[in-house]
């Protein structure tokens, strides 16, 4: 029987946000199924439960399409971690995070942590082109044939251009520095002190769902970081077992939502 039938209340909520086609579904799929396969653009949002040690982590893989914009704040309600995903080969995908997705996180938990994730690093960085988990390698090779190569994915080794010497190839449109600067702006948007918050170096990731590069690191770092949040939720639940962590939170978050955009 699927474990879902015996589902306990999720302890914590993690949400994947980002423009369509950046690879949110692929990242989650890589992490949970250890595979990279062709995807279909997500409709609405898809809810997953991940067992993390003794804890139940719920993960929302949301659709990046504008069509589903209005649901974003619902998916984010009470979230403890938000993964803001962009595509390293697409500058616009980072811009969209700021323009379209950041405001959706207004409904998140006040202690919510944010990760900025540049996916498809295999297209730009040589170190991300090596498959990380051995069990998926052969399958990846097959899958590779089936997925439409974006730009350089057919190229097994990085081109020996000066750009690749610095670990970056020509089609990289977003640098890690850009992402870190964006992380700084997230903190400012949230009214958080840079000092008291998690540092940008720690919260900005470059990943490849295709090769698995940094994918486990991303999720596991986040899960570790939301642990305090889990324990706090569990405590609250012990004190008042009827409290639903998904419940609409106070008016504070609503006010914040209406002031933005």
């Amino acid at each position, binding site marked *: *029987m*699927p474990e*879902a*039938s015996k*589902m306990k209340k999720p302890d914590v909520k993690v949400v994947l946000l980002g423009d*369509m*086609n950046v690879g949110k*579904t692929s990242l989650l*799929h890589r992490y*949970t*199924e250890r595979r990279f396969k*062709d*995807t*279909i*653009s*997500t*409709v*609405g*949002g*898809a*809810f*997953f439960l991940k067992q993390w040690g003794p804890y139940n982590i719920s993960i929302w*893989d949301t*659709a*990046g*399409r*504008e*069509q*589903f*914009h*209005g*649901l*974003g704040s*619902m998916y984010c309600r009470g979230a403890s971690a938000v993964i803001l995903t962009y595509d390293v080969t697409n500058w616009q995908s980072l811009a969209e995070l700021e323009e*379209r997705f950041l405001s959706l996180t207004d409904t998140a938990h006040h202690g919510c942590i944010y990760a900025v994730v540049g996916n498809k690093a295999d297209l730009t960085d040589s170190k991300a082109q090596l498959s990380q988990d051995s069990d998926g390698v052969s399958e990846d090779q097959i899958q590779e044939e089936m997925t*439409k190569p974006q730009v350089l994915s057919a190229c097994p080794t990085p081109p020996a251009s000066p750009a690749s010497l610095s670990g970056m190839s020509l089609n990289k449109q977003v640098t890690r520095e850009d992402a870190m600067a964006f992380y700084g702006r997230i903190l400012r948007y949230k009214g958080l002190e840079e000092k008291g918050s998690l540092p940008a170096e720690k919260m900005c990731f470059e990943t490849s769902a295709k090769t698995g590069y940094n994918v486990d690191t991303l999720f596991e770092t986040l899960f570790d970081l939301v642990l305090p949040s889990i324990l706090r939720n569990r405590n609250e639940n012990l004190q008042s077992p009827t409290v*639903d962590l*998904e419940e*609409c939170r106070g008016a504070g978050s609503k006010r914040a939502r209406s002031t933005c*955009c």
Partner: protein
Amino acid sequence: MFPDPTEINDGDAADKEDPAESRLSDVAAQEQSLDAEPLSDQEKEQETEETENTERQNNDSTETADGGTEDAAVDHDQSDSGEFVVTVLAKAKLEEQGIGVKGRSSPLLEAGTQECPAFISHRDEDVTGDSWRQHRKHVFVLSEAGKPIYSRYGSEEALSSTMGVMMALVSFVQSGDNIIRSVYSEQHIVVFLQKGPLVLVCVSSSRQSEEQLRGELLYVYYQIISMLTQASISRIFEHKKNYDLRRLLAGSEKILDGLLNLVDSDPSFLLAAIHCLPLASSLRDSLSHILQKAITPNLVFSILVAKNQLLTIVQEKTVIEDTRLEPTDVHLLLNLIGASSAFQAGEIWTPICLPLFNPDCYFYAYISYLDPPECTVCLLLLSTDKEAFYAVAECKRKIEEAMVAQNSLSLIAKAQSYSVSQVGVSDLRHFMYKPFDVPDTYRQLTQFTSPEMEAPYSSEEEKMRLLDLYRFMHSRIHSTSRPLKLIYHVAERETLLAWVTSKFELYTCFSPLVTKACAITAITKLLRWIKKEEDRLFIRYPPKYSTTPNPSKSSRGGKSDQQDSTDNGFLSLL
């Protein structure tokens, strides 16, 4: 509402006849040109219901030629679909009729070229090796401003010129206070459908009737509505006439592609009826009962699907009193499930509009498979409350538990469509039976039943050929100019009989040498068999539940909180 439609027809046929007629004569005139297909002399005799097995030779040549024509069409289309449409239209001798395609289209062509989206070229041109029949039917959606919205096949360049020509036609005819409905050429029909700010065009060599093709375009329109709602589409275009709707539909192409593939391969669409999986009525009842018990406020429909066929459907009481679920809405839902199930492990929560139920309002659909990793049994719960995900997911938990307790999944796994041999009528190869009043309760879901397609219809080609024959019979029966009650059609490789009464619509396929008397006896037996099996073949009494303390919330067009969510928030992004 509209002035008389303009009918543009191929040269000589254009003058006085109505569309169906002119097409008939059009084709009849070409009989010697190999692709006359089933529309031969023969059918004139069929109308008398007394057909001899004549015209064999004629049929023979048509059927073999058919495959050949299709191959040729594929090659042709791949070269350049824009040019292809231009050619089709040119063949229809438009210029001679003073339409002046070329003069009108050039500015539009240019306008189209600059703005072709990147994603169209990224689209998978060929889905799963079915390429042999892929191009027999093109479908295009464009906005009134001539912006391309969707194309079933075709590269960027081809798309822009195609849309350009189409818009030229549409707007030219419009400028004469007319509406273009169709263009006939030797091998193709171009059918136009205007719905609000959208123009849908089908270019087909499938030999389906214009009405059938327009019906298919309507499905495409409804599928778009199911994603965006009619209200928000109108508002978008009121707001900005040349809005690029692809922004909102990007990513949905696969849903439309999937729909069009289903339309071609699943007779449910032709019959506008639901195909449910045959199931012992006790099992179906117990499943319904399980659904009936797992409810939460604002839940309005609970639907269980296996192998893409309906197992059962339970509706909220006030909803069912108000209206019934239309087959079209169910088809769109099933298509959505099919197209969104690539990543089947999760529980999906997505807004969806049921266009025939209420084109302006969203439901929230919870979609989850109950039997991972096989993922054949799918639960669909529809709520009117956007925030109800966790409550609805809890219903799934309950349903899952009850199904475990009753061992339902393994019983469902055993359920199968049936073989025509179970009917016990020799010579009967296949049939489709659509009753007009399944049970005595009123407003039942329209359903049909049909056995598996077995030899000689096991290959994709043969299945398609049989479906094409059915489509042909259907178009003859439902011909607007000369509707028929009974058609007895002797083809080369089979004999078909279609029959419509006030109680049912029936299509049967027999081996070629069956006599008419035999066929009639067989049908009598078949009807008797269906009567005996109907509890298993159909969903008989749709159960209900009550979840709404406040009925206005769930009923059709409830004006309360759904209304403000019709745009799903995306209008704020315009």
